[in-house]
C-alpha cells in the first residue's frame, strides 16, 4: 500500500501498467482499455492521463486547499477489463501558515538518567 502526504502544490505522477500476478511479468495493454481513477475526497483530484508516449499514468494533486487535516483519503484505479484495482492512501494535512508554531526536524541527544523515583 502506497501512502503519500500531499501538499497543495504537489503533483504526483505514476506510470500505470498491467501485471500477471502468476508470472510477475508486465503484459501489453489491450486495445481500447480504459482506466478510471477515483478519490474519496473532493479536495484531492485523481485522474488518468496519457503520457507523452501514449501510455497511461495516474496523476494525483490537490483540487482545493484543505479546510482541515484530512487523512486516509483513498485513491483507486480501475480499468474497463475488470483487472484487480490498485489503490493508494493520501494524507492531506492543512499546511502551516505564516505565524503558525511548527516543529523543526527532530534530533537525538542523550542526558544522564534521572535518579529520583516517581511520585
Amino acid at each position, binding site marked *: 500500500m502506497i501512502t503519500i502526504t500531499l501538499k497543495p502544490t504537489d503533483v504526483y505522477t*505514476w506510470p500505470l501498467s498491467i501485471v500477471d*500476478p502468476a508470472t510477475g511479468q508486465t503484459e501489453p495493454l489491450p486495445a481500447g482499455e480504459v482506466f478510471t481513477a477515483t478519490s474519496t475526497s473532493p479536495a484531492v483530484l485523481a485522474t488518468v492521463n496519457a503520457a507523452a508516449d501514449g501510455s497511461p499514468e495516474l496523476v494525483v494533486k490537490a483540487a482545493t486547499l484543505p479546510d482541515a487535516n484530512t487523512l486516509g483519503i483513498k485513491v483507486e484505479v480501475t480499468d474497463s477489463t475488470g483487472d484487480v484495482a*490498485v489503490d493508494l492512501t493520501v494524507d492531506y494535512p492543512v499546511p502551516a501558515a505564516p505565524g503558525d508554531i511548527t516543529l523543526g526536524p527532530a534530533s537525538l541527544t542523550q542526558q544522564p538518567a534521572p535518579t529520583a523515583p516517581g511520585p
Partner: protein
Amino acid sequence: MSDARPGSTVPNALRDKSEYGKQTHIERLNGTGNPADGTGTIGAPGAPPPSGDPDEEPLPYHLLAAAFHDGVFRRAGETVWLLLHQVGAHHAKIEAVIEEVVEEVIDATLDRPRRRAIVLDVDHMVVSTQPAPRGAGP
C-alpha cells in the same frame, strides 16, 4: 383353504404349505433387502459377507427407500454411512457424485480467465509542482 395366513387361528393342517407360508414375518422382510430387525441391510440379496477388516472406513450412501439404520428409522433420500457388508439393494453410493462435482469445479476454475492486476510504477514516480489551489474544500 388357500387364503390361510400365518398367525391366523387355523389348524396347522390347514396352513398353506407353499414357500411363502413357511416364512415368518421378519424373514420375509429381511429377504427384501430392507430388514425390519434394525440392523439395516443384513440378508440383502447379493450383499458380500463381512470383510472383517478392522481398518475399514464406512462410506456414505443415499437411502433409496425408508429403512432402519442402527435401530433408527431413516427416510428415503437420507445419507447413511455403511461398511461394505452393510450395503444393500436400497443403498446408492454417493462417492461418484461427489467426484463429479469436484471435477466440474476444477474444470470451471481452469477455464476461468485469470485476473491481472493494475500496478503503479513507483520506481518512475514523478513529483512536480503546481500553483496552490485557491479555495478551501467543501
